[in-house]
């Protein structure tokens, strides 16, 4: 991945990838609690990646970037944060069933404001029926959902059911390109990011 970054982008991109690899290596060592990992991953991306609209970064109205693309550009919008964090946590061994990418309606400008915006965050469910921890690029901390009164969940998804055991790689399936979610997963896979539980 580092090589791809060096080939496609400038040295700073390669460095960003190196830093990300170091984070992964560090967190894969024993002794880190899940909460610790969540916090470190959240902090890593929130600190490194500048928030910007897709139109500014990718010159497209809506573009779902892979973690490599996000790291290389050092910029992204809310989905790019959520995707990068989701994939990083999956690489660290967090089970897919505990993670959800959640579409939320975010109220901006304090509790009384009527202005709201479409937003995406990553939710972590310690137990299936528990309240999730929210990884958001708008705030630095990882907080339980109850402490995020500004967010209203709408819909969530993960990679469950996208790949059936034994089925062919989904990128061979032309239907893949029609779904942004499956598209980004495939592109990340092509860039060398192999999520556990997914076919080679």
């Amino acid at each position, binding site marked *: 991945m580092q090589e791809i970054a060096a080939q496609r982008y400038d040295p700073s991109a390669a460095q960003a990838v190196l830093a990300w690899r170091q984070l992964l290596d560090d967190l894969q060592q024993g002794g880190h609690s899940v909460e610790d990992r969540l916090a470190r991953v959240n902090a890593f991306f929130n600190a490194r990646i500048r928030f910007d609209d897709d139109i500014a970064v990718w010159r497209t109205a809506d573009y779902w970037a892979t973690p490599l693309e996000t790291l290389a550009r050092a910029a992204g919008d809310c989905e790019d944060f959520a995707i990068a964090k989701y994939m990083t946590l999956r690489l660290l061994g967090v089970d897919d*069933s505990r993670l*959800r990418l*959640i579409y939320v309606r975010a109220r901006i400008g304090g509790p009384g404001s009527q202005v709201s915006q479409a937003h995406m965050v990553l*939710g972590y*469910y310690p137990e*299936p*029926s528990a*309240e*999730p921890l929210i990884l958001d690029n708008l705030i630095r901390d990882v907080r339980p*959902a*109850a402490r995020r009164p500004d967010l209203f*969940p*709408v*819909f*969530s*998804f*993960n990679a*469950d*059911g*996208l790949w*059936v055991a034994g*089925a062919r790689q989904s990128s061979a*399936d*032309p*239907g893949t390109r*029609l*779904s942004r979610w499956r598209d980004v997963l495939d592109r990340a896979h092509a860039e060398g990011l192999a999520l556990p539980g997914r076919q080679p």
Partner: protein
Amino acid sequence: MPKASPFPADSHDRLFSRNHRTMSLIKQLWLATALLTTLSFGGSFIVSTLSARHYLQQELALKNMDNATSLALSMSQMPKDEVSVELQIAAQFDAGHYRLIRLTDPAGKVLAEREFSGETASAPRWFMTLVPIGTRAGIAQVQDGWQQFGTLQVETHDRYAYDSLWTSTQQLLWWFLGGGLLTGLLGTFTLKRLTRPLEGVVEQAEAIGKRRFITIPEPRTLEFRSVVRALNTLSERIRTMLVQESQSLEQLRRQTQHDELTGLFNRPQFLNQLDAALSRDDAQAGGSIYVLRITNLAELNRHAGRAGVDAALVRLAAALRTVPLPAARLDHGRLNASEFALLIQGEDEDSLGVLDTLTGRLRTLVREQLPDAELLAASARYTAGETRAPLLARLDGALASAEQSGASHTVAADAQPPLHTSADAWRQAITEALEHGDLGLHRFPVLDMAGRVIHYESPVRLRLAGNWLDAGRFLPWAARCGLAARIDAQVLATACETLAGDPACTGLAINLSAEALGHTGMREHFIATLQAHRRIAPRLWVDVQESSALRHPTEFRMLCAALGALGCKLGLKHGGQDFARFAELHDLGLDYIKISAAFVRDIDRTPGNQTLVRSICTLAHSIGLKVIAEGVGTLDEASALAGLGLDGMTGPGLPASPRRIVA
């Protein structure tokens, strides 16, 4: 000369299945076409069915996924009480086409479920097992606020997919069957067109293999054309060679057998012709002989000079040659310087009257140049089986009495009166004999040079008025009464029976009369009878007289083709005299030629005829004909013939004296 096979079915069979091991070219091409068609259509059939299945699988998977997502999205927004959840799932299931919609809570417990249990697809089960459509369920998460509510699993019913795949497969199959059939038909048609010239080439090659040197029109296909051109050139070369050879043969024959001055037969050859005529046993047996003598030739020579007399004799000979007589065969000879003779074989009744007129005309003709010439004429009738010397003695007697009486033309009395004198009486007698089955066949062996029997000549005989009569006695009358073809038919039937009943018999040769040869119905009857006796056909030899074959060339050609296809042997009888007139002998497919006794008589003392017979043998062998000598009368003749390249001989003088066996 282009020639259509009389049995196209046979040549077809030959081309298409020679035997099991050597498969014909056409069969191989046809198999290749069939195989290619099957492969291409079968292959594309399988590919299109599989790609249709792949497409259906993808569509189903996408539909599952999208429907799961949209249902999960709407459920996430709705109240999560049991009734609402149940209702939403039921509404989606009942309005849509699903096999299963199931909602499970995060712990894996089923919250709500709808599953289709009803009729299955109309596609047969074997088809579904053969081409399974593996659909992937669509999975989406239902959210209740921040809480996970459950996982939704949606599976579309695959029944419609199977049905549509089954229908489209069936349609494809029909199309492909139709297309394959059409291609097969087109291929067969094209092959037929392409290989039609090949049939011609094969037929020609096989004909040449049997030494039947035919030419055929050049086909348009380039490769076949060069083959046919080569074969045609070969045939043409053989034909040219044959024409040249027979011309020189004819020249040789004229030198040997003809009088130098007048071009008529010389004395020895005329007597040979007479002997052969007397020994005939067919419809042309019997006839008349006419002799013209200039009594004062020596005196004329002195007075008019040799040259003048010679010129008059040449004119006389020319006039004699052009006598219009209704007879099967006329031979003209100069017996000595002052004697001329006319041999009338197979005559009609009233030739004696014509001879009177002829004598008058000849006398006038000669006296125009030689006013003092004295001409005397005599004629005598002969019948089959007479011998030469008494006949000539009778003629001499008649001439002597003419000289005494001063009559210009005297007719000698018949040696033996015929059995019946009127044609009606003969017709009745012959018809009765045929109806009573009083018909038999002789057997005279025809031997090869080693003394083995090649076949038996089997001339017919009839029992008339209690006596067995040889063919020469009654056949001329039968021919006159129009019964010759009927006798031929009965002879053929008897020969077939004999051969079928006597497997040890090497072969029988029967005679086919000119009448039967020229008559379409009789010819067809003849061929049909042989077709019914295919097994004995190879042992049957059919003799046709050289003169008959020359008189009916087209019919003879057709007979050759038909009998050749049946395996019969066909050959010329009493041959040699007109050998040079067979322009197309090379492509007839004849098997043998029997040389007339007129060549064989006294051959041990006639070097000219020896050369002739040797040349005929060489020529005939070059086109695959066997040569058999007829009427060998003495052992000396037989031993002279042995050195001339003959294949066989027959006659009363052979070492193994002929046994007369009644068949």
